[in-house]
């Protein structure tokens, strides 16, 4: 039995019919063919599959596509605009925050989540915030530098906003009721 889902991916509303067992990461990669989000372990360890679900970073290999129904999802493809890298991407570019690049899409999304909540993070805070993302190449040093670089760029643009910490929103399920399967059988 397939379920209709409506998920806004990188600002575009997408409608599909999916099996309930389909993971969000496979929905993105195989159904929508948006393949910037990587799959490493598929068990919630590596963080290569990190995307934003309603603005919060989550591992898309642990989320069913049907659980994202009615939500908006941002993938690494949603960061750059008109071919211009965003500040976090630019930071990784300048500080060599990647080698093979496998972990990079996930790390960029985790970095964004951190910088939204804490615009001026210490190196220690950065290390804690990315501890769900594994990188086998860089040794993390350059990733920490990249995120510091990005933070600087973002603060330079929005000095006022940089002072106050933005707490995460309390996410309430806002999935669309009318398409839902009746609960009582």
């Amino acid at each position: 039995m397939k379920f209709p889902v409506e998920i806004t991916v990188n600002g575009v509303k997408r409608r599909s019919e999916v099996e309930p067992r389909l993971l969000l990461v496979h929905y993105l990669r195989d159904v929508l063919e948006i393949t910037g989000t990587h799959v490493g372990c598929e068990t919630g360890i590596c963080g290569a599959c990190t995307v934003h679900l309603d603005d919060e970073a989550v591992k898309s290999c642990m989320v069913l596509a049907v659980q994202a129904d009615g939500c908006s999802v941002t993938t690494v493809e949603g960061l750059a605009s008109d071919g211009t890298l965003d500040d976090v991407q630019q930071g990784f570019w300048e500080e060599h925050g990647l080698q093979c690049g496998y972990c990079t899409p996930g790390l960029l999304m985790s970095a964004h989540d951190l910088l939204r909540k804490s615009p001026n993070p210490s190196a220690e805070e950065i290390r804690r915030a990315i501890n769900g993302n594994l990188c086998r190449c860089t040794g993390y040093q350059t990733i920490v530098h990249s995120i510091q670089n990005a933070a600087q760029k973002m603060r330079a643009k929005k000095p006022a906003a940089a002072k106050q910490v933005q707490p995460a929103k309390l996410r309430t399920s806002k999935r669309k009721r009318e398409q839902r399967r009746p609960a009582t059988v």
Partner: protein
Amino acid sequence: MKNFELYEPSNVREAVATLVKIGPKAKVIGGGSDLVAGVMKDWVQGNGMPLPDALVDLSTIPQLKGIKVDKTGATIGAMTTLTEIVESKDLQKQFSLLTQAAHSVASPLIRNFGTLGGNINQRPRCWFYRGAEFNCYKKGGDFCYSVGGDNRYHAIIGGELCYIVHPSDTATALLALNAQAKIAGPRGDRTVPFDQYFIGPREDVLRENILKADEVMTEVFIPTPAPGTKQAWSKLKNRQVYDFAIVSVAAAFTTDASGNWADGRVVLGGVAPVPYRATNIENQLKGKNVKNSIKQAAATIRTAARPMSMNAYKVDVAQTMVERTILGALG
């Protein structure tokens, strides 16, 4: 992954009705970080543990989400995410033990989606249990692979038949805070203190708590701690970043003006099939100067412990951590 039917109830009554109708092959899902991404995707199954045919998604029930703090205590909906708990200023003020324990769970990416109900009710992490090819007692088989196998992370207290350790960090903290679970079922609501919530393998090897297949945990209530309650959490992991506890200690206690133990709880995670309340240690401390007596009191963990072939080190770790955590709480 095996396919399944999905139900999206709009309230708790509907969720329970669905569980009753479908029977034990229906399971509720919170964030799914354990049930879907762990158990189902890895085909963890056996005679006593069939993979679910139907999932009842609780994320469509808004009433199950949120944190309310008043004079009597804190009420936290089962679908509240761990991130929401970590970021709650109200909880941090009076229930810092829970804040710290929740913060020590996994990584931000999992805390953003994983729920309190899912954390408390998650299945154990014994590596034989999680391996599809080991049909052990906990899955309805007739063998425990940890006895003759690699048991370095298994139980040192209370193992029998099965030697899992309870994996939940929040459960350990909630027991120390004398919290209780509110449960909804076909016969109405019931409230169960966490003291009675978790069960060991002797009572039922197939599950870790008293929740029945047709029941849902709806919220957790933590009574406001007595004024001056000291709270502390520590968790030893194999790696600096995210992992389950080798041993964790949650302590909440009061002292009188001269520093003597008045009342309180010491609970250990990672040592037993349930969050383990160390009443021996509490009794040893009662009425005594905490600073002077903690060393001797912590050593009583040795009399309760029955380590396995590869995990005697955990007894030393537990003893030291109890001592350090309580001294740390004294400041």
